[in-house]
């Protein structure tokens, strides 16, 4: 089992931690969702939160986003304890959360609009990110005219355009088809490499988590806690075409399945 529990790669020092979650507990009425959970998210890396359904991974992500309040514990982003949503974090939603009455460019610029940036300026920024997610020509389209994959590109462009240090992605690819999803995963890898941002990525797909992550936190449910942290080492530098054939990739996928199997009904 010790194949990639990379003690060989020591965890980065505190200066390199973008988001730090300390002793978080969360209860919904009587149900304990998270208990005393602590986790660090290294700067410039993609960390996946992976676990069976109901393990509180989305709850944890929303606490980091400041959308939910924890019952106890603290979340620090860039060394500052957070008390709500902030400009240092941007969220990508599972169901895209686009405004159906607004066209693509207004949706992408919405985060900037809320910050009071002038229209011409925010549209210039939005256009740049629309181009970077490959939606040039669709600026004036409305969400209902786009496919699921294109809608999530809009959601991604919106999150990128506010230039937050931390990107929170809540199962962003689960509502798009398999082929689009693979393309997204490849794009996400180059995004992590080029953007120097910290990504926190919630998924229920083991393969997806292993494919895109620098660090995988396995959460086990009832109540949720971090059961192990896996840092793949050998295939991260390889080209996207070779990852799925890498022995370490296959081993980690098997290892995670072995530890999650008993929690799946």
């Amino acid at each position, binding site marked *: 089992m010790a194949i990639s529990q990379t003690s060989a790669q020591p965890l980065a020092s505190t200066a390199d931690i973008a988001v730090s979650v300390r002793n978080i507990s969360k209860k919904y009425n009587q149900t304990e969702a998270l208990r005393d959970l602590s986790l660090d998210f290294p700067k410039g890396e993609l960390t996946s939160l992976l676990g069976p359904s109901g393990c509180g991974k989305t709850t944890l992500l*929303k606490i980091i*986003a400041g*959308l939910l309040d924890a019952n106890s514990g603290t979340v620090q982003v860039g060394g500052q304890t957070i008390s709500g949503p902030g400009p240092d974090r941007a969220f990508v939603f599972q*169901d895209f959360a686009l405004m159906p009455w607004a066209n693509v460019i207004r949706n992408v610029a919405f985060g900037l609009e809320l910050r009071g940036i002038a229209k011409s300026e925010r549209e210039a920024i939005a256009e740049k990110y629309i181009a970077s997610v490959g939606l040039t020509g669709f600026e004036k389209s409305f969400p*209902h005219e786009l496919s699921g994959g294109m809608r999530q590109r809009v959601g991604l462009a919106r999150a990128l355009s506010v230039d937050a240090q931390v990107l929170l992605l809540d199962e962003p690819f689960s509502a798009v088809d398999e082929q689009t999803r693979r393309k997204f995963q490849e794009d996400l890898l180059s995004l992590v490499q080029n953007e120097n941002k910290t990504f926190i990525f919630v998924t229920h797909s083991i393969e997806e988590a292993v494919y895109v992550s620098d660090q995988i936190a396995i959460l086990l449910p009832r109540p949720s806690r971090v059961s192990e942290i896996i840092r793949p080492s050998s295939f991260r530098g390889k080209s996207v075409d070779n990852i799925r054939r890498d022995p370490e990739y296959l081993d980690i996928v098997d290892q995670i399945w072995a530890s999650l199997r008993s929690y799946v009904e």
Partner: protein
Amino acid sequence: MFIFGYKLPAMSSLILWALLWEVIGRLELTFFMPAFSTVIATLIELVQTKVFQKALSETAYAFSVGVGASILIGIPTGILMGKSRLLDEMLLPWVNIFISAPLSALVPVLMVLFGFGTKTIIITTALFAVWIIILNARAGVMQINRSLVEMARSFGAGPFTAFYKIYFWAALPEILGGVRIGVIRAVKGVIIGQLLVSIVGFGALFELYSSNFLMAHFWAILLVLFALAFAIAEFLSFLERKVAFYATKR
């Protein structure tokens, strides 16, 4: 509809009904029904009179103030009720009582409270319109996609910004539906109010014409009112269709 390969314009069946009216009127079966052409002739005469124009402007004034007030009060109240559980629990019973209540029975009370004038009519109009506007705005807000609200919050929107940038727009199809029905009810409200107060606007004219058996005048006024109410309702459903593109895709 097509006849002999020609496409008939919308509502051309009305011509047939007008012809039937004309025939019944010409037969002089009852004084109650003058011929359609007589009614139209009276109408054209009538709309040029001072009396009519005064009645029209009084009615339009009471109607627009009443509708304006019920929109301005109804939409925010409905949105707030949809957002706040406490407010909803407190207000919903009242809204449900008033939406089904026979409001005409309240008008005499209003007359005592607010006098025999425009004020009473405005309040009657608003009372007819406001409840359905509240209920629809509330329903619109309650079906809002939660993640849209979370999205606005996560990008830094405060409660007020979220209110007019997200809640209002997300509930707009329902709100407009409520306004359309509310406006139709307001037409009833303004006329019922005027009839009961009976010294203002079209109410006074109705009273005058029917008690003097001026049936052509009576029908002419009625036609004007029907046409106005219909035109307003059509205009609002035109607005509703403009937001329909996203109503089904939220």
